[in-house]
């Protein structure tokens, strides 16, 4: 390929600062045009983001101050903080929402440490130079590609309440026939536990892959040095591995807690078909959707949405601060 003369000069332009400096003269007009190009290039995505994220987000805040119902002949009326008052303090109406908040909190408090811990254990286990280790990594990652709606359906079968349910009959065999059928999804306590277990099963591979990448960035010499110092395996983990993946670990904790407040699919599918105890497993998003969709109460659903977003922001800020103070050490 023959190129015009400036092309030949271009690569060397970086090494020798003087020719590069001379090319500065035609630059200002180009930079002016960059303004147009930059804006044109980002325009389609920006339009989309503003139309489908920015505007609706502001709109949610506005709607939460109104009494708006879908399909109602009455015009929306200004409601002030009434929606929020109803959500939090109204003795007749706050029940389901507060329960949803509590359920979500329970879910997060269990899932964040357990899933992160499990992901870390798997990552360490899979961080070795063995033949076919890639196959094992893929197997643990496999559920991540399963849509949550399908995961819920599979676990509906495993946890089925009849004696023919997989878990029930496994326990029947293990207990030499002493185990009677148990309604895992229908009992309040095990309903939440079931949602937790199936969510961890689906999601742990994702965190594992991220942590594995973090582990692989720790230089091997650090372990060799630790070995020379006769550090035990635990000491190696404590003083080499953990500090080495600190940043990654914080990221994973942050991601997992954000995700755990977005739980919706599995609860919805199992309530609709699997006889899941609704009261014990409703989440904030589940509450928002049923309020908007089943009750047509857009104003209240918007208020729930705003509360949901405030939780997400609070979590992000707390974790940002955790990262910052950690880095100052």
């Amino acid at each position: 390929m023959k190129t015009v003369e400036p092309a030949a000069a271009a690569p060397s332009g970086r090494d020798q600062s003087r020719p590069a400096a001379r090319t500065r003269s035609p630059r200002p007009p180009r930079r002016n045009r960059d303004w147009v190009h930059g804006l044109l290039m980002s325009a389609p995505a920006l339009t989309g983001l503003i139309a489908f994220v920015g505007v609706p987000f502001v709109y949610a805040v506005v709607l939460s101050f109104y009494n708006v119902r879908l399909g109602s002949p009455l015009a929306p009326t200004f409601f002030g903080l009434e929606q929020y008052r109803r959500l939090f303090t109204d003795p007749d109406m706050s029940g389901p929402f507060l329960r949803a908040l509590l359920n979500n909190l329970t879910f997060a408090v269990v899932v964040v440490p357990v899933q992160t811990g499990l992901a870390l254990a798997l990552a360490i286990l899979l961080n070795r130079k063995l033949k076919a280790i890639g196959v094992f990594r893929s197997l643990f990652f496999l559920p991540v590609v399963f849509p949550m709606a399908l995961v819920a359906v599979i676990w509906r079968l495993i946890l089925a309440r009849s004696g023919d349910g997989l878990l029930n009959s496994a326990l029947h065999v293990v207990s030499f026939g002493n185990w009677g059928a148990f309604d895992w999804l229908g009992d309040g306590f095990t309903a939440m536990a079931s949602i937790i277990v199936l969510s961890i099963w689906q999601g742990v591979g994702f965190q594992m892959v991220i942590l594995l990448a973090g582990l692989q960035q720790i230089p091997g010499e650090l372990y060799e040095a630790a070995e020379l110092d006769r550090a035990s395996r635990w000491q190696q983990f404590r003083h080499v591995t953990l500090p080495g993946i600190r940043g990654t670990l914080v990221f994973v904790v942050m991601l997992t807690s954000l995700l755990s407040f977005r739980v919706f699919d599995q609860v919805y599918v199992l309530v609709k078909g699997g006889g899941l105890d609704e009261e014990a497993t409703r989440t904030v998003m589940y509450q928002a959707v049923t309020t908007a969709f089943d009750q047509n109460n857009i104003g209240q659903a918007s208020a729930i949405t705003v509360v949901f977003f405030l939780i997400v922001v609070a979590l992000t800020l707390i974790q940002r601060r955790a990262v910052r103070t950690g880095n100052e050490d």
Partner: protein
Amino acid sequence: MTRTPLRRFLDYAVLSVLAFIFVLPVLYLILGSFKPSDQVLNGLTGFLPTHLSLANYTAVLDSFNSDATGYFWRFMGVSLLLATVVVLGGMIVNSMAAYGLARLRWKGQRAVFALVLLLMLVPFEAVAVPLFYMFNDQRNTIYIQAVPFIANAFSIYQFATFFRAIPPSIEEAARIDGAGPWRTFFAIIVPMSRPVFASVAILTFLTQWGSFLWPVLMVSDPSVRPLPLEISVFQGQMPVDWGQVLAFGVLLVLPVLIVFAFFQRWFVQGVASSAVKG
């Protein structure tokens, strides 16, 4: 570290047992999809590979055969169409925006990029309700299922991170050559950014393929129903034909498994790198 053969054997044993337990639900899904319904929900014998046949698959393809039930290939087509539009559209639109925001210098560029980062904090769940209200008259369309998901702040962020790591000399060369920003982008930057395109595409595809919340709100008509919503409807119809539901499930996950099998490396790299940098 040196490893004795015994040690290595133990490693494999532990890994195999764990992996087997972990994959059991998937095995159950696949086996069950080939068994008659009364053999699926049948205790531990649900794992025995007996009575296998393709009957459930043909039944799934045949039994969705009217406008009231919808058609299987129609669900599949809707899902594929939505994924294609969101993935391809997203790759073009978001990579262009990332380049315009991360590599071109213009007034206000920083402010706009900060806005994008801010919007990245807003999860879809936080705007689902107002969107549902705003677009209520457009329920049951393909358009409303796809368009809101094309522009994606996180994709822009992923592209921007990658583009920023490209040495400026490469662009300088192209631009001194007389190429404008568009040509520089499409002829130089895009071809050398395959890894980030691959990982953004796969992540978007995965999210879109499993998308559930939005279809629950916006779709009731079987003719525009994507697969995940349909399996939720299907498993809720009593009496449940478990064999068919599982066959439906296998068909639902098959496209993702194929993509995963071929692009696994990109996917894992993409997930990992964006996380470690972030």
